[in-house]
């Protein structure tokens, strides 16, 4: 206990504010308890997301082209592979964050693998370049054939082939 008359040093501050966001959202009259937005607005937002999902394969095809372009450079100019790897990794990062949202979790999975594979400490041998190509090929197959969800048997086959390529070239 503190000595009477001696104020102990404050160790914890709690800030308790009025909920101004709720005031903004609930309007002047306000209300108690939880609120919601209209089901109609949510349905419209869902429809907008669906619309964007339909554009997704076209969008991601362009990213796959960019990956092929970087792969080609890795083959043509081995001395500069480090910088090409950085670009590969950047694109892979973009793709791994998108695929699942638009119904293509396999794209996310392959992109994640490519992202890990092209990290700053990754090797850059010709074998590595082959494995990179195997990743990009898998992505192209997924998009061309519109392989949604986990892809069932095709999905399994694709991932198996990719793992086999990594195994074959014995690279990490």
């Amino acid at each position, binding site marked *: 206990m503190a000595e009477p008359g001696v104020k102990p040093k404050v160790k914890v*501050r709690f800030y*308790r504010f009025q909920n101004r*966001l709720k005031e903004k959202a609930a309007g002047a009259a306000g209300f108690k308890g*939880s*609120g919601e937005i209209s089901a109609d607005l949510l349905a419209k937002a*869902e429809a907008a997301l669906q619309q964007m999902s339909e554009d997704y394969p076209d969008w991601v095809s362009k990213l796959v082209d960019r990956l092929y372009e970087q792969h080609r450079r890795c083959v043509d100019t081995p001395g500069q592979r480090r910088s090409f790897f950085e670009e590969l990794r950047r694109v892979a990062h973009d793709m791994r964050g998108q695929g699942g*949202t638009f119904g293509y979790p396999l794209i*996310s999975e392959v992109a994640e693998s490519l992202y890990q594979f092209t990290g700053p400490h990754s090797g850059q041998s010709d074998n590595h370049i082959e494995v990179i190509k195997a990743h990009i090929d898998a992505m192209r197959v997924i998009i061309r054939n519109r392989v949604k969800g986990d892809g069932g048997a095709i999905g399994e086959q694709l991932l198996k082939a990719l793992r086999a390529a990594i195994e074959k070239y014995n690279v990490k």
Partner: protein
Amino acid sequence: MAKYDLERFSILIVEDNLFIRALIANSLKTMGVGRLFTCEDGGEAIEFLKLVKTDPMKAGTMTIDIIVSDWQMSPVDGMMLLRWVRRHKDSTDRFIPFIMITAFSEAERVAEARDLGVTEFLSKPFSIESVWKKILAVIDRPRQFVHTATYFGPDRRRQDLGHEDGERRTLDDRSPEVEIIRG
């Protein structure tokens, strides 16, 4: 149930991926959010937040109500932005709700963001429902802010669940070492 109207909300979206950025902006707009602002990385967001404070006319808004930010961006990522918002002396609103977007591979790192004072997590891949739930959580369930020698941010205890190893908090509202600030 009573309806919320987000027309008066200003939300800042910080996301380096154009497609995802457009998706979030589009979704929030359709849900009725009045004003949306977008930045491509944390650095741009910091400059924008400063501009809101110093020149709201130029920024196009007097205030930002919620920040929705991706985690992985370069050069300034979501964690650096969060740290600036919560701790930097130039921060314009240290109490602003901050929703962090996380990819599946970042699951193990959420404790790191929690300890920097994140408000909510939105995990990718996301759905309209998950986006709305996070916005709703921010509106409906704000937490008190806690400031100690080692932490500043929303209370990390969301529920009073009881603790197997006993209560480790030694101070409460009546302790003289506790100061309560209301506003």
